[in-house]
């Protein structure tokens, strides 16, 4: 509110703040997974800077009005929640997540319940990744983060078992019992997560690990990794930047123009520009058409209806009806601007001639359309298809980044929070790519790209396991140099250009003493090799 006031004091402050505030808001509140996160906050700034108070006294009153409205908002939300909503859902907590995962581990051997498990796991995964992703900006390393990283890795282990059924062939009674014991231990840990000391937890897990007598295999790897994770409990070009730059540019140019124009109601330029500019190029283009049609129709309605309204009371009542209808309509449609225009023009007509208001409304909208069109077209455009390609490329890049983490792990200790972050990033982007492919039914190579996504997902799961094996010193010191060379070769094969010609050679040369290391690397290389069949469909 203060920033909004300061932005109206001089042209310099207007330009500077309109450049900075939208940029900061998009950068901190929005992401490609929550593109409109900036909207409500930016709207406060934009609306309040449109009709600035004349002096500090008025600013004080405006602040009082704002807090009055906030009080009303708090009371209304409370009232609404009591009246209309079921009890608020319990927010995601680590205890709740761990307990849910324990329950799913218990059900894992039951093949009939696999669809239910998949559904439950997908929900838990989304809830967790959403929470983790939006914590990234101001996050500091603390014990809670360490526990979250641990949970993230446990989820990864679980998903690997859930999506690949081959381990069921080797499932025996003692393995089912081990799974149940692991689930019970997780359940117990979930209940006492806040109270157990690191030492106590380590002892419990160590005992369980010693008790484990089942043969080597997938179930053993899974259970051991779960327990190891419990034991080790302590332990960004893209969309945001592009959209932040675009919004900042549009707001700076439109507000600057509004500031220097000597005509009344010039604030309609930044206001229209603000609503026209959308995170994606396609949405913005659509809004430029619908808002223009709606505004023109609204002007026609106002031209006919306004002379018929009986006095100020009639005008206020008409504008209130119009704004109520505006709330009933879907944002972005061609008819919503009809109501917005009628409301704005009726209010404006109280202080100026109706026909002048109509003319200014159309002129200012045209100015806003020109600004937004230019910014959208020439200044960091974010088309959905381009974003998808960028995301796809990022998935491959993240694969290589994970290898970098593994390399660091070979040379020294790595922090689990680093792999937790990369995991979250990978899953959010993979989900976004999957959603794009689901929605774009005409997309070329759609099915092939979906298959590539799945393979990348498998590869990431294997990298995750590899990282775990490195941390548990499963690669002998004398094997480390060979593995480092292999990592370099794999990275060259996959990114920035997928060649993959030497993958089969690398796979044949796998010689490590620990069979788990050989198994995980072999699986990774097989999946990487299978990507070659889709080479022509990979969009970069």
């Amino acid at each position: 509110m203060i920033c909004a006031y300061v932005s109206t004091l001089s042209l310099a402050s207007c330009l500077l703040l309109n450049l900075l505030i939208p940029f900061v808001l998009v950068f901190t509140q929005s992401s490609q997974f929550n593109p409109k996160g900036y909207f409500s906050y930016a709207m406060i700034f934009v609306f309040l800077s449109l009709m600035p108070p004349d002096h500090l006294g008025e600013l004080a009153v405006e602040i009082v009005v704002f807090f009055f409205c906030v009080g009303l908002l708090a009371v209304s939300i409370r009232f609404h929640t009591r009246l209309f909503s079921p009890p608020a859902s319990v927010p995601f907590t680590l205890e709740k997540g761990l307990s849910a995962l324990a329950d799913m581990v218990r059900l894992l051997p039951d093949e009939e319940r696999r669809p239910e498990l998949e559904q439950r796991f997908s929900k838990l995964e989304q809830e967790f990744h959403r929470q983790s992703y939006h914590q990234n900006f101001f996050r500091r390393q603390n014990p809670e983060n360490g526990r979250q990283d641990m949970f993230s890795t446990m989820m990864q282990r679980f998903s690997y078992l859930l999506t690949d059924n081959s381990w069921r062939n080797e499932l025996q009674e003692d393995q089912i019992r081990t799974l149940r014991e692991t689930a019970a231990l997780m359940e117990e840990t979930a209940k006492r997560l806040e109270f157990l000391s690191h030492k106590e937890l380590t002892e419990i897990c160590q005992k369980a690990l010693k008790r484990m007598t089942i043969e080597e295999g997938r179930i053993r790897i899974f259970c051991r990794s779960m327990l190891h994770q419990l034991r080790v409990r302590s332990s960004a070009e893209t969309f945001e930047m592009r959209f932040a730059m675009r919004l900042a540019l549009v707001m700076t140019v439109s507000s600057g123009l509004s500031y220097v124009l000597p005509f009344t109601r010039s604030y309609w330029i930044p206001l229209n520009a603000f609503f026209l500019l959308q995170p994606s190029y396609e949405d913005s283009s659509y809004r430029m058409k619908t808002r223009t049609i709606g505004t023109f129709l609204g002007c026609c309605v106002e031209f006919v209806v306004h002379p018929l309204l009986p006095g100020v009371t009639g005008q206020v009542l008409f504008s209130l009806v119009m704004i109520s209808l505006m709330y009933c309509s879907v944002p972005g449609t061609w008819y919503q601007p009809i109501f917005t225009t009628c409301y704005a023009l009726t209010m404006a007509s109280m202080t100026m001639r109706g026909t002048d208001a109509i003319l200014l409304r159309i002129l200012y909208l045209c100015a806003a359309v020109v600004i937004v069109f230019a910014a959208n077209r020439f200044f960091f455009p974010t088309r959905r298809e381009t974003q998808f390609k960028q995301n796809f490329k990022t998935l491959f890049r993240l694969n290589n980044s994970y290898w970098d983490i593994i390399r660091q792990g070979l040379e020294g200790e790595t922090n689990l929070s680093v792999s937790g972050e990369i995991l979250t990033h990978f899953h959010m982007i993979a989900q976004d790519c999957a959603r794009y492919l689901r929605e774009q039914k005409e997309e070329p190579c759609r099915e092939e790209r979906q298959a590539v996504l799945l393979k990348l997902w498998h590869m990431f799961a294997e990298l995750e396991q590899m990282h775990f094996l490195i941390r548990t010193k499963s690669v002998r010191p004398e094997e480390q140099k060979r593995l480092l060379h292999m990592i370099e070769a794999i990275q060259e094969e996959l990114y920035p250009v997928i060649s993959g010609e030497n993958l089969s050679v690398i796979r044949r040369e796998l010689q490590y003493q620990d069979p788990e290391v050989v198994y995980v690397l072999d699986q990774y290389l097989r999946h990487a090799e299978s990507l070659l069949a889709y080479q022509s469909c990979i969009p970069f």
Partner: protein
Amino acid sequence: MKATWIGYGKRFLQALRGVAPVILFFLTGFASVYALFGMQYVCVVSVVTVFFRCATKRTTRRPGGICACWLLVRF
């Protein structure tokens, strides 16, 4: 043709029922700010209404709540 108009009408009523709390919030805020502070400050209400709309979108409506809403709208 008649059926189409009935369809539009039904959709409109459905939308109205969904946003009735938002409209009520806006109207209450508008009336209070207009009465207490004056017309020049009513734009603040539009901004706060966006927050109210976002907050209420996240909750699921129950039939009892819809009835209560209708009562509020009617009286």
